[in-house]
């Protein structure tokens, strides 16, 4: 069934969109990532103009994150206090990031820088997570499933302005979460994604939050960042395509529910290995695009939205 998208100005198969939304929704539910780093390239592939793809996927991320968040809220897996602190840093960071983005745009080559950002961050985060979680899995096997976690004390614990985060079981300074929120918000704005794939590992490895709480808290934070991005795109570029968003999010919210249930059944270490592999796969794909000679060297940017 073909439908015509009024903003993207192209006709696409509705079931294809439902399927894309569904796949990304499942991943979003399992890993607590918004899926922006997956759905945007997928939409390019279907032929949606890049500007429309970026703006509309932000809207779809809001939907799938809300759906996932409710499921996590019922399991009490959301540290609201931590979420608000991260968000405060995140909004300042994303405003800062939009500034950087516009500066790079005026210099040209913003495309390349975004891609290099992807390769660098996905590569580093993916490989770090992969090695760490594989080691944890092996240790688990050796210890017969019993892990004695050594709580390391570092600057996260010694910095001033300490606060108790009950859900996460942490008593740490609010400065590190604010900084994490800020950095992730900034990167998210530059790379045009929700930032879950950076936020999740940052919460686990820098803040030392338990994996169980990380995903719900990340979703909570992503909702606001993605909503902010959607509004910004709708008002300045007029590139949010409602029918496109509708099909993606119908698939996405259903997928997110399924994903959350899969996520509950998996062990934390397995979850981390899978997320690491996914992140690495996207990284390799983007790196290959930069390294292999494209079959068509020329590209056309014509429509106002595609510029």
């Amino acid at each position, binding site marked *: 069934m073909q439908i015509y998208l009024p903003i993207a100005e192209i006709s696409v198969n509705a079931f294809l969109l439902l399927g894309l939304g569904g796949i990304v929704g499942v991943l979003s539910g399992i890993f607590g990532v918004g899926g922006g780093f997956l759905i945007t390239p997928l939409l390019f592939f279907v032929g949606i103009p890049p500007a429309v793809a970026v703006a509309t996927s932000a809207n779809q991320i809001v*939907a799938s994150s809300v759906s996932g968040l409710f499921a996590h809220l019922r399991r009490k897996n959301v540290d609201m206090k931590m979420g608000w602190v991260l968000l405060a840093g995140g909004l300042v960071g994303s405003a800062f990031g939009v500034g950087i983005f516009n500066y790079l745009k005026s210099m040209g080559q913003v495309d390349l820088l975004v891609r290099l950002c992807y390769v660098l961050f996905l590569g580093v985060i993916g490989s770090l997570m992969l090695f760490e979680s594989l080691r944890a899995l092996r240790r688990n096997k050796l210890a017969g499933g019993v892990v004695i976690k050594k709580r390391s004390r570092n600057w996260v614990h010694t910095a001033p302005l300490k606060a108790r985060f009950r859900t996460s079981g942490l008593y740490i300074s609010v400065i590190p979460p604010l900084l994490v929120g800020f950095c992730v918000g900034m990167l998210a704005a530059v790379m045009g994604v929700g930032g879950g794939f950076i936020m999740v590992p940052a919460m686990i490895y820098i803040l030392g939050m338990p994996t169980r709480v990380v995903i719900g808290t990340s979703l909570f934070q992503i909702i606001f960042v993605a909503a902010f991005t959607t509004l910004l795109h709708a008002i300045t570029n007029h590139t949010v395509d409602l*029918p496109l968003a509708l099909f993606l999010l119908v698939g996405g919210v259903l997928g997110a529910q399924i994903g959350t249930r899969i996520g509950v059944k998996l062990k934390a270490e397995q979850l981390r290995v899978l997320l690491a592999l996914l992140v690495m796969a996207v990284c390799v794909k983007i790196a290959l695009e930069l390294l292999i000679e494209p079959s068509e060297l020329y590209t056309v940017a014509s429509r106002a939205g595609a510029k």
Partner: protein
Amino acid sequence: MMRILLFFLMMVPLPLLAKEEVVLGLSQDNVAITARFDGSEILIFGAVKREHRIPEEPLDVIIAIAGPSEPAKLRRKDRKFGIWVNAASVDIISAPTFYAVATSRPLETVLHPFEDLRYGISIERSIRATITPGMTENAKDFTEALLRIRQAEGSYQLLEGAVNVDQQTLFRTSISLPSNLTEGTYRTRIYLTRAGEVVSHFETPINVSKVGLERFLYNLAQEHAALYGLMSLALAVFAGWLASAIFRLIRLG
């Protein structure tokens, strides 16, 4: 059909010296883009009206449909430090978003280059003259790339031999419009040629516009952007909550 024909017959002015004239019919002169729009096929047919004997030279027909023109930016990737990056770029002041040329025989047989220059019929003619001065050195590579890319996606079509001509009098062809049409007026031109010379031509517009829900959403997104953005968000939050609630009910029930 006869009524449409008759209508166009009345529309045709009577130039004093023209010996042959086109009487044209279109299957539709309005293309409405609805939610289920998936491209459109336009049937173009007509007859040649003349008040003398058919000349010896065979008659050929060229039909060209040109969509609204827009500026475009073409970029070429080059290898730098081992990776492929956008390097050179050329601004094209205006290039049609859609262009189809249908002919009764190969274009170079039925149209003299001089006549092409005069009337601007071939696809190349519709863009070549409008490149920013300065980047002239490899500008040709860039325009060729534009033609290649747009031809590959079906936006530019050269349909040689697609026009059927009967008894040097009746002609017809069909041109398919892709689904990624730009809204606007599509200029439809018909040229009658003999031995490569244009003997008569006729022009009529086809209007392409979004209607109904598509029109409403497009206008809303353009004119009430903040409202539209909030609407999108409300929809997203509602859909997310609804899915969660439904799944919970299924689980409980």
